[in-house]
């Protein structure tokens, strides 16, 4: 169909020939690109003078790698892919029964999450499990919860909110301030922090009701920055950028405490050995419960008229109004509900760290949460959880890759490549699955059978 510019040449060229040609081009481009980046390096000599170190060998290696890679890709990978695609197209379209894992994804996921700390303790012992439960488990689950909260605003209601971290901050500071000044318990402050964040969600919602798309995004972004700047500059209350420390720990529903000095310290009550791991494991189950709560509420809400109205709002706001839906309150409830979960997550975060400062609530956090929602597939809880696992877990794993030092030399710190990898992963996923891991949408009601709605029909909303 497509008319190529030089048909004669393409007809003659076998894949190998073409691959050869393209490999040469790629090599030339790589050489041009990297000659200054890799071929030369600025450095200081002993006299503190700037000198140029020449690294032609490394440059040659990189260019060679590009040439070989391109050759292999064009000569073997592309024809192979095409062949397999043709085969798949030829094969009769059998409705593939989704595999066992796919069908029971949610149940398996929940079970794995519940058993995870137990497995870690059994594998690594109490002390050894700390890292796995805290750095991986809790860290990932916080982002899962945040992304699920944001999913209500973006994935369901289609309102692009770039300042979500503001509600996280409100929740964290609400717990930090009320907890340190008034000594109120976490169990009272958790709902209070949620309510306060929801209040700010409505506060943000009012002015942006009339805005759509880009404008909405910009204003919410500004809102996030305003909250952060207030936290930095309102020193009398927030202690500025120094932050608030000594935030009380969560107690086991007031029955047992996790402070070694307390009379009802858990190890004393239960008569077991002292360990910091108990608190971490408790926190893990706490955030897991909060995540389940978020998921439960989201799933329930989707089947209720509000949730349907959110999705309808994403699809077509004008049609909503023609059906008598009050779009103002619908948008505000979406903002408030999303913000509330952000507030819950925030107060948990404060309790876990024992310390909060404005540093933790920069725009980058909003961007990461948004990236997780988009990668996971807007509106799908499972997809978002997987995206959080890959993204947050992936960046945490980088810390564990000490062996790379052997390859790249002792100066190599894999953590520094975090954002690079984050970006690369996003680009790859978006090319491979433009609508995220789970692009389809589960209908909220059905007459005969529940069929997933393909992503090509759903809209992203207009802001």
């Amino acid at each position: 169909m497509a008319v190529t510019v030089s048909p004669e040449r393409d007809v003659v060229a076998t894949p190998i020939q073409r691959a050869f040609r393209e490999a040469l081009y790629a090599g030339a481009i790589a050489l041009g690109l990297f000659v200054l980046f890799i071929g030369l390096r600025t450095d200081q000599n002993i006299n503190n003078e700037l000198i140029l170190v020449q690294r032609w060998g490394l440059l040659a290696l990189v260019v060679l790698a590009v040439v070989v890679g391109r050759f292999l890709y064009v000569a073997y990978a592309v024809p192979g892919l095409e062949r397999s695609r043709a085969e798949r197209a030829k094969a009769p379209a059998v409705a593939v029964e989704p595999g066992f894992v796919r069908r029971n994804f949610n149940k398996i996921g929940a079970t794995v999450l519940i058993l995870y700390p137990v497995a870690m303790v059994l594998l690594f012992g109490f002390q050894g499990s700390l890292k796995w439960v805290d750095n991986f488990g809790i860290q990932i689950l916080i982002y899962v919860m945040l992304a699920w909260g944001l999913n209500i605003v973006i994935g369901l209601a289609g309102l692009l909110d770039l300042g979500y971290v503001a509600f996280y901050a409100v929740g964290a500071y609400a717990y930090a301030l009320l907890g340190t000044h008034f000594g109120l318990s976490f169990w009272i402050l958790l709902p209070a922090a949620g309510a306060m964040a929801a209040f700010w969600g409505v506060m943000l919602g009012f002015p942006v009701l009339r805005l759509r798309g880009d404008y909405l995004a910009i204003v919410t972004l500004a809102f996030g920055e305003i909250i952060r700047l207030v936290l930095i500059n309102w020193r009398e209350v927030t202690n500025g950028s120094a932050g608030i420390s000594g935030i009380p720990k969560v107690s086991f529903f007031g029955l047992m405490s996790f402070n070694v000095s307390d009379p009802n310290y858990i190890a004393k009550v239960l008569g077991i050995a002292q360990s910091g791991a108990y608190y971490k494991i408790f926190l893990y189950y706490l955030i897991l419960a909060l995540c389940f709560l978020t998921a439960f509420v989201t799933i329930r809400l989707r089947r209720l008229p509000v949730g349907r109205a959110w999705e309808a709002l994403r699809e077509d706001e004008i049609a909503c109004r023609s059906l008598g839906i009050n779009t103002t309150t619908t948008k505000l409830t979406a903002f408030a509900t999303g913000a509330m979960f952000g507030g819950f997550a925030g107060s948990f975060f404060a309790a876990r760290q024992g310390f909060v400062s404005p540093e933790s609530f920069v725009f980058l956090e909003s961007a990461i949460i948004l990236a997780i929602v988009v990668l996971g597939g807007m509106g799908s809880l499972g997809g978002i959880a997987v995206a959080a696992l890959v993204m947050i877990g992936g960046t945490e794993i980088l810390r564990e890759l000490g062996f790379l030092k052997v390859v790249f030399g002792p100066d190599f710190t894999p953590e520094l490549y975090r954002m690079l990898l984050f970006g690369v992963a996003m680009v790859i996923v978006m090319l491979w699955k433009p609508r995220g891991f789970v692009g389809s949408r589960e209908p909220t009601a059905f007459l005969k059978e529940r069929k997933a709605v393909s992503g090509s029909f759903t809209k992203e909303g207009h802001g």
Partner: protein
Amino acid sequence: MNAQVSMNDFILQVEHLSMKFGGLIAIGDLSFQAKRGEITALIGPNGAGKTTVFNCITGFYKPSEGMITLSRRDGSNYLLERLPNHEIPARAKVARTFQNIRLFSGMTLLENLLVAQHNKLMKASGYTFLGLFGFSSYRQASAESIDLAKHWLEKANLVDRADDPAGDLPYGAQRRLEIARAMCTGPELLCLDEPAAGLNPKESASLNELLMDIKDNTGTSILLIEHDMSVVMQISDHVVVLEYGRKISDGSPQSVRTDPRVIAAYLGVDDEEVEEVLTEVGDEDVIEQLDTGPDAAHGPGSSASMMAGPVSDTVEHADEGERVMVSRGASKAAQVDAKAKTPRKSSERATGKPAAKSSTAKPRGGRK
């Protein structure tokens, strides 16, 4: 039906309605009534302001002047121009469809119809709180709403596709679904904006059937914008004709069909046709006048053609407005009027143009 013809005979009364966009008078001093239980058709060439009338009735536009009164069956009256947009369907029970279909394309057919029952379900779910904890009252209401949705899916002949996304339907089915969705709000007045546009004859016939069914079995009054004269003549009880935002005729389909002004306006693609029409009507004086030669620039031109694309999204570009002043000079119907009224002596100055034509009206169009 007769039992209902009582004091509040009219479900909708539009009085002196005007809508201006900058300098453009989209509707000028329009008054008409729609009887309860009837199908009232609003017709006119493209750009005549029909969709604008709908947008005023359903609260998407606030009219510049005028009053729109809706009387519900229970006797309560609503001034629609004062109600906020979303309360018009909710309280005054007016539902509408759109010229360019607006479905929730990523939701299934069933979900589309459930969204339409939002207000009812919202109340039943105790504004979400009772529903969140799974109270049985909500479950019952939810089951009822699914039954209602199923009822309308059956009527629209779409029940087999209930679980498919709305965006996946063929065009004619999407039109029917939009009507079914509007009916799920339980309206007393249903406003349909060109429901037959783009349908093939078979789809058009099933649409007619659906509309007649609605009229006969629900008592819902219908206000209908339509281009397709055959549909209008077949199903409507009463026809209002607009041209350039003004009413040029009002009456039964038969009387409207033979109104020379309507024919001139509606078919008036070329001035020759006007002449033909007038020949048919047999007004010799007027024909004489026409010899002075038509002024092509002032006709509705291509905008009267059915082939002209839909005025896309008239709902959304609320504040852009070209300052075009449309006077009656551009109107075919006005030409007919002017010619009819001009006394015989005008035939003496046979070369003079009719007064109406020399007005400074600019051609319209280009607004799409």
